[in-house]
């Protein structure tokens, strides 16, 4: 049995990694080498040249820095807003709760593409075009995150909340001191997914940002696709480098899943 589980796990990992591996290989070849048949399967020796070219063509270091700090600010604020809202929806019976849940679900259901024009009009009317806040603030209430946290809090034992309140702690205090530490695995997941959604966000920053010094990674990489020339090596290298911060966030916060095993002790 264990052998099969192992085989399954290993095969899954291989399938997951191969395309990613090829992306790294592609980042170390020149664009024209990528077009040979069969395509190269071993790393080449153009990595440094591609890095220099990428920095030259889209100022990649600065673009990465912009992406990192905007995504961090977004993640901290959005995770907080989502966790609070999810908790409120799951654990309190207040007037309008049903409507709010419906609205949260509705914003998740409405195709983003159809909101682009009116949202853009709003941003333009308040003069937010080509600003950082335009790519951070409108989407802070991340309905996906709210829904994730609501589902997580649904199972949270009420007795623990009550005992916290009996100790005289206020609602917010109970939330920060007792509740949040207990849902660390889900919080970890929330942080990972919130960061990911902002990091990979493309169409909205593309519409909002006009100055090259404010571009985020996906917007900058978009410039490597031209009319009669596509810089595939640069694209692959940029895409690979762009996954590194994501992987870092994942590695940092996936520990929380493991910690979650111990956190599970709160459940009776």
């Amino acid at each position, binding site marked *: 049995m264990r052998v099969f*589980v192992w085989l*399954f*796990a290993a095969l*899954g*990992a291989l399938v*997951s*990694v191969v*395309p990613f591996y*090829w*992306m790294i290989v592609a980042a170390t070849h020149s664009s024209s080498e990528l077009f040979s*048949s*069969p*395509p190269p399967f071993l790393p080449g020796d153009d990595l440094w040249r591609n890095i220099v070219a990428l920095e030259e063509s889209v100022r990649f270091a600065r673009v990465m820095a912009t992406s990192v700090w905007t995504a961090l600010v977004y993640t901290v604020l959005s995770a907080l807003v989502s966790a*609070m*809202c999810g*908790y*409120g*929806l799951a*654990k*309190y019976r*207040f007037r*309008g709760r049903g409507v709010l849940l419906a609205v949260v679900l*509705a914003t*998740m*259901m*409405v*195709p*983003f593409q*159809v909101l682009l*024009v009116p*949202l853009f009009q709003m941003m333009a009317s308040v003069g937010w075009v080509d600003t950082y806040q335009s790519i951070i*603030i*409108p989407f802070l*209430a991340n*309905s996906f995150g*709210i829904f*994730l946290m609501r*589902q997580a809090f*649904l199972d949270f034992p009420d007795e623990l909340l009550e005992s916290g309140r009996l100790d005289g702690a206020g*609602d*917010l205090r109970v939330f920060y001191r007792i509740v949040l530490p207990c*849902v660390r*695995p*889900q919080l970890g*997941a929330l942080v*990972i997914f919130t960061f990911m959604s902002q990091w990979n966000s493309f169409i909205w920053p593309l519409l909002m940002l006009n100055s090259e010094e404010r571009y985020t990674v996906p917007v900058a*990489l*978009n410039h490597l696709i031209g009319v009669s020339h596509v810089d595939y090596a640069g*694209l*692959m290298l940029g*895409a690979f480098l762009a*996954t590194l911060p994501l*992987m870092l966030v994942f*590695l940092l916060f996936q520990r929380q899943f493991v910690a*979650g*095993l111990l*956190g*599970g*002790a709160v*459940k009776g």
Partner: protein
Amino acid sequence: MTSYGLRRRLAGWVFAGPATALLALFFAYPLGASLLQSLEGGFGNYARLAGDPSFLQSLVNAALILVVQVPIMIGLATVLAYTLNQSWLRFRATLRVAYFLPAVTTLVAYAVVFRVLLRTEGGAVNQVLGVEIDWLNDPAWARVALIASLTWRWAGYNAVILLAGLQAIGREQYEAAAIDGAGSLTTFRRVILPQLRPVVLFCSITSTIGTLQLFDEPLVLTGGGPGDATLTPILYLYQVGFKRFEFGYAAAIAWAVVALIGALSWVQFRYFGKERS
């Protein structure tokens, strides 16, 4: 009880307040505007949907993905998550990272890599399988390619969410099951799955929404083709709005999709989510 109850209500709004304010500020107008736009000239846009073969085909395609791809992906993700949660399995951290890789791959890279892998002549997939399939130009195979590449990209992501849910289940429950002499399959079915229900519900609802809003992958992989074989409702919406500039009709497509997602989610809530709150 009343004063305490009132306090709890207010506290509820304290927690939900910031998100509510943000949603009201930034989404009330766009949502309303798009709804109004879809109603320009009465219900004509909605009536037109019913007789639009491309839209209907896109719904059929979405249904196909919903019925075939989502169950495969969620099933695979559940098994992966369960596997990753086994304490005896070594290199778990490494495997976790490996499964998560596809989800963090940037879209452009995803597109290029799959185009290269799926090339008819000299493509790695055809070479491994020993066939000469024209993956992206044959209607049936283009769908298979789309389903496979979607599963590749998102199964690990769902596994991570499910893993978080799994790990919230106390160790004692596994141990209790083990003491009762249950095998790992029985434990999985009797103990784990019921506990996972809210998370599975979350995954299947978000996957349903993800399917009906599917856009990125068909756009970069097949462009909806050949013909309308891999056209999705939102890809069609995009073509109608941004290529044909029929914004009212595009908005009608959007709201028709919302209605569909709403109905499907409601059904899922009914059948999956006997919630205890």
